[in-house]
């Protein structure tokens, strides 16, 4: 036999479950709608940040240093096009198209990665 208090608890739990489903679906769709942001990092410092979904014409970015890098940006994608480094691992990585994709030129200490807009950190330590 259910008492009134039990019903209140049941109701509360159902609302809680519904709320968390709504929360999760909202969170997912918000992630999908944000533009892809490519970040170019040289010597651990961010030198350029590009919204690659908003790029209309292809463009090239030159990065100097011990070795040179040419980075090519097109709508929705970015890559190392050319590099003066000996191993050319960065060029061979090819196109970056998804959030979390990353290409690194260790000899020139250059890195490209794609991140979401508010995807920089998962948490802050204090």
């Amino acid at each position, binding site marked *: 036999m259910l008492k009134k208090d039990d019903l209140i608890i049941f109701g509360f739990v159902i609302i809680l479950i519904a709320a968390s489903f709504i929360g999760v679906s909202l969170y997912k769709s918000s992630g999908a709608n944000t533009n892809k942001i490519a970040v170019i990092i040289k010597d651990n410092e961010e030198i350029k940040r590009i919204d690659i979904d908003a790029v209309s014409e292809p463009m090239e970015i030159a990065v100097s240093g011990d070795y040179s890098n040419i980075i090519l940006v097109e709508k929705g994608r970015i890559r190392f096009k050319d590099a003066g480094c000996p191993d050319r691992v960065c060029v061979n990585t090819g196109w970056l198209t998804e959030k979390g994709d990353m290409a690194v030129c260790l000899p020139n200490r250059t890195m490209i990665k794609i991140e979401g807009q508010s995807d920089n*950190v998962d948490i802050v*330590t204090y």
Partner: protein
Amino acid sequence: MNLLNDAAGKEYVSLGEDTLYVLDKAKQYSEISKGAFDVTIGPLVKSWGVFTDNPKVPSKTEIDDLLNLVNYKDINIDFENSKAMLAKQGQIVDLGGIAKGFAADEAVEIYKKHGVKSAMISLGGNILTLGAKPDGRPWNVGIRNPRGKDSSYIGIVSVKDKAVVSSGDYERFFKKDGVRYHHILDPKTGYPANTGLIGTTIISDYSIDADALSTTVFVLGLEEGMKLIESLEGVEAVFITEDKEIYVTDGLKDTFVFRDESKEFEYVEKR
């Protein structure tokens, strides 16, 4: 722990396995740091009222008196009988600089026991990660800007299966007669540590180690602290000085991302 403190200078008291472990760890870090970290700081913490609503600046004589009670060598541990004792009456062990770290490690053990592969725990800013993120990428942990808002950061470390713990003068402080006093007391002077650092962050496998070491290097200062961390295997650190310069250990140089939206800090890569 209260039992141990109450029986200080009188007798050995029986302690649980966990308490003994934490106490022993605390003593080890006191030794490694030659007393820059010292859990027998209790009498001074109490006198300053650091964690109360009414903190105060104790008199110089009071501080000097209480400093006589601060000595980790007075922690006697009898492992065989699971007992411990403090040598002098009035001595107080304060595990505030290490207990949170231990708790996070314990929490992760529970997760592991239940087959959890990916998790992140934050115990009041002490971060502990289990595995990578569900998508396989490392966790990006921001390092708090000591002079900025709660969510602002000065850089990012990417970690898997690591603890990231920070200490800083911004966590807890009070102002008296225009002077800012923070909560990390130097066991040598009895006053808030004043070594030119405003924030330290440790990255290590276990949270208990990161917790103790973040306080330790904060008290040691940049040069000594850097030396200590570089001498320990599998431990990395980020130092932020009052001149708003950021230094990292060698092992972090390739992965630390300097990102300071306040544009007030400077990343010093060569030292």
